[in-house]
């Protein structure tokens, strides 16, 4: 067999010990009428042929394009040290650290992850990880409801459409309500959360709000008035949830600085490959006051019998294996290996490296804006952005397809992703990061000009 060690003699010995002729006797508890029909699958593939098949499939994806696509998933430089550490079997073939005495590596790495992310978001407590940004955001919204004993949240339309969809799915199950806060339509704040609308939505006394969720930067890459949104939220007795892009926190004010109670976000930009949707890293953090409402594992510092410093999973009374139907969440498997990747990446970059990554991305994006404007493609919005923005491109779908043929992945056709905002019906969402080159930017501008003329 492929990975099993048993020889025919081994199997004979085991069967003989059991006094059996064959293994079928071990399955006699499956009722005859319910036994499986034969499995129809292709024959086993020898490793060499399978490797070739996998290379062929991978080769059918086009990853050679000059890409300006972000929209929640960003390309960043990952030093090879990150993946070489991840490839150590001691990390990736371990399980949840249920026996802490032989899991101090995993436990300490999670504690360090909690510490690094806490620094980044400037909040007290960080869960050991969630599935992805969308799931972490949905959990943050549920957490706000538990903490306030209210059953309605407000989510800005500037939050990633997939996250908003996930919140809706989770909330329908929990029997709670989600209302969306519109974006400002005109003026310098167009494309950011409409604060007057937020104030109105918060004002309904009969239907109190548990939490308000706003993304920084928002889905269009724009900087949101987080401090003001947090102030309005707190005045209504609700919790403020900031949905953040972690690399941006190298240069942007962190959630703790503007009074957010909870921060959620997608950790993929911290050195994790795009790999068509995951595995990613859901970041969830909160203030000390909310720790008992925080879902997911937590690792804390303690001592062993001899007084040595050690790490252990703690506050497990929140979790499903103890509390069952009264648990804070059903979360069990999380994204520990991706949390490790993020920690190693952050440790390799350090505070100055992280700042450089974010600032260089901003500089490249400014270069991109200028290059596109020079070929007659202006921004859609006027509010400041960090490294991603929407540009006005009539007939965006056709142009986008044409760019592919010219070797350029020209961002995201916004009309495909956002159905409820007429302002972006003719627009592409484009981003740049520190890995975007001037040559790629020039190629994009040239291709765009040619495609629009076509």
């Amino acid at each position, binding site marked *: *067999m492929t990975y099993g*060690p048993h020889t025919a003699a*081994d*199997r004979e010995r*085991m069967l003989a010990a059991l006094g059996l002729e064959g293994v079928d*006797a071990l399955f006699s*508890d499956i009722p005859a009428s319910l036994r499986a029909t034969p*499995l129809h699958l292709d024959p086993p593939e020898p490793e060499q042929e399978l*490797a070739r098949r996998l*290379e*062929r499939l*991978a*080769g*059918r994806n086009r990853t050679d394009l000059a890409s300006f696509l972000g929209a929640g*998933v960003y390309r960043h430089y990952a030093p090879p*040290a990150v993946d070489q550490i991840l490839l150590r079997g*001691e990390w990736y*073939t*371990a*399980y949840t650290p249920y026996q802490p005495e*032989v*899991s101090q*590596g995993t436990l300490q790495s999670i*504690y*360090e992850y*909690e510490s690094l992310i806490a620094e980044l978001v400037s909040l*007290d*407590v960080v869960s050991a990880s969630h599935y*992805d940004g*969308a799931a972490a955001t949905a959990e943050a919204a549920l957490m706000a409801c538990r903490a306030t004993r209210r059953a309605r949240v407000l989510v800005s339309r500037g939050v990633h459409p997939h996250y908003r*969809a996930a919140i*809706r*799915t989770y909330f329908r199950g929990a029997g709670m309500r989600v209302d969306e806060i519109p974006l400002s339509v005109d003026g310098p704040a167009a494309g950011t959360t409409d604060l007057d609308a937020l104030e109105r939505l918060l004002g309904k006394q009969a239907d109190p709000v548990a939490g308000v969720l706003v993304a920084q930067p928002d889905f269009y890459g724009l*900087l949101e008035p987080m401090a003001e949104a947090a102030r309005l939220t707190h005045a209504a007795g609700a919790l403020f949830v900031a949905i953040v892009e972690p690399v941006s926190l*190298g240069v942007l*004010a962190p959630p703790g600085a503007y009074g957010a109670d909870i921060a959620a976000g997608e950790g993929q930009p911290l050195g994790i490959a795009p*790999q*068509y*949707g*995951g*595995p990613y890293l859901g970041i969830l953090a909160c203030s000390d006051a909310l720790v008992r409402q925080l879902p997911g594992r937590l690792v804390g510092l303690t001592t*062993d019998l001899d007084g*040595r410093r050690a790490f252990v999973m703690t506050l497990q009374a929140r979790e*499903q*294996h103890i509390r069952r*139907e009264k648990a804070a969440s059903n979360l*069990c*498997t999380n994204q520990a290996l991706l949390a490790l990747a993020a920690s190693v990446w*952050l*440790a390799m*970059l350090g505070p100055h*490296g992280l700042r*450089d*990554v974010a600032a*260089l991305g*901003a*500089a490249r994006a400014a270069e991109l804006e200028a290059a596109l404007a020079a070929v007659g493609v202006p921004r859609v919005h006027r509010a400041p952005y960090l490294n991603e923005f929407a540009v006005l491109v009539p007939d965006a779908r056709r142009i*986008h397809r044409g760019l592919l043929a010219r070797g350029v992945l020209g961002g995201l056709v916004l009309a495909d992703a956002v*159905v409820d905002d007429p302002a972006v019906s003719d627009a592409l969402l484009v981003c740049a990061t*520190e890995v975007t080159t001037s040559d790629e930017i020039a190629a994009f501008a040239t291709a765009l000009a040619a495609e629009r003329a076509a």
Partner: protein
Amino acid sequence: MSATGERLQPTLLELSRPGRGGSIVPHPPKDALDRIPSEQRRTVPPALPELNEPEVVRHYVNLSQLNHAVDTGFYPLGSCTMKWNPKLNEWAARLPGFARLHPLAPDEVAQGTLGLLWELEQMLCEISGMRAVTLQPAAGAHGELCGILMIRAYHESRGESERREVLVPDSAHGTNPATATMAGMRTVSIPSAADGGVDIAAFRAALGPRSAAIMITNPSTLGLFERRIGELLEAVHDVGALAYMDGANLNAILGRFKPGEAGFDVMHINTHKTFSTPHGGGGPGAGPVGVGEKLLPFLPAPRVLREADGTYRLEAADERPTSIGRLRSFVGSSGVLVRAYAYLRAHGAAGLREVTDDAVLAANYLKHRLAVSGAYDIPFDGACKHEFIAGASSLKKRTGVRTLDIAKRLLDHGFHAPTIYFPLTVDEAMLIEPTETESLETLDAFADALIAIAREAESDPSLVTGAPHTAPVRRLDEAGAARNPNLRWRATAGALAPCPD
């Protein structure tokens, strides 16, 4: 002795020295952030560690050596299926064509991954006997939520929104009742019968017009196939409820039992158990969900579709209004699914049957060795599936040594402990799952160790109750950790437990 012990490591933050590190990315131009309004900028840099590559790499390599892992030894953690993680699969997931593909890349540039996902869905349909599979859920518990939300949508679509009860056997994983709560359902706990199966009388009494579903793990967390499964499924369907199968133990029934054929309406599959995607110290996983005809319309969006011309595409956002919607961003954890695909292709039908046969044979052999030794209680007679329960209830009465002590003593023998005190229905339980990838020598050595520990418990109990003796740390103060939680590094923590260098 230093504060952290010989093999333990300082934290990254203790290793940090101002001015270390740098030069990984180019410096940005000085005016890079001029466009950002000052009130939006960070004023205090995050106190991340400042380190160079050698310190970072040594830190993590040294930390890694404090872990037990499948790559270092036997990991008989019941219900977790800690089998071998093939190295080919790690290589495959890292192929640039897979790893660098953006999840919102247009379908036409993602044909390789889309085709792989579609094929994987077909293989999982064949294995589970289900009509269709979604690959979106990120883990088993996420799959459970997906399944129960679909069941809820199904009942609501038929005007039966009063169906809000989910029947869950008391031996179930904690995720089952926790999932029911998340999906707005009420859990009705069903006791086990003396033979470890579901108590049929209690089960029938609990079924009624408010029943939405039953969630069954089959084989159960006792490692027993539910012999009355046909009767159970019939009773569930007779009252208009649906049957959810928790596929955590699928490794025991590959090619022997297809839940969809038997009448289950929905099940999840843990790729990180049965199909050998690595557990990663707690994750990532992937929890594909298979459904029968009734739940087909409610599958989460987007699905992977195959067109008549043989190309693949993702379903559009609003293409199927009956869908329960999204459970997460993008299509799913494709990087995990590439590994599962490679595993299935490597095995084929014959290989998968052999996986199950060998896993079940190994578990029965190990159970037999412990049973004839008389060292432990073996509460359930007859054949087990891929895992079994051994108990230390009698040993504890005689010697005072508990299952926890035995688990810790196993660490000294170089083995990971089995799952302990689970399921909750058996006193002093150990749930032992050897998997199909452990050699007969390992199985024998493990049985010998368990038997030797039982002898030690009689002759020198303090040796067992004081274990582990050779692990990097001794037993931990868990109560203290919960009483005064220290959940992140702060400068003050450094004063309490200084850095060893």
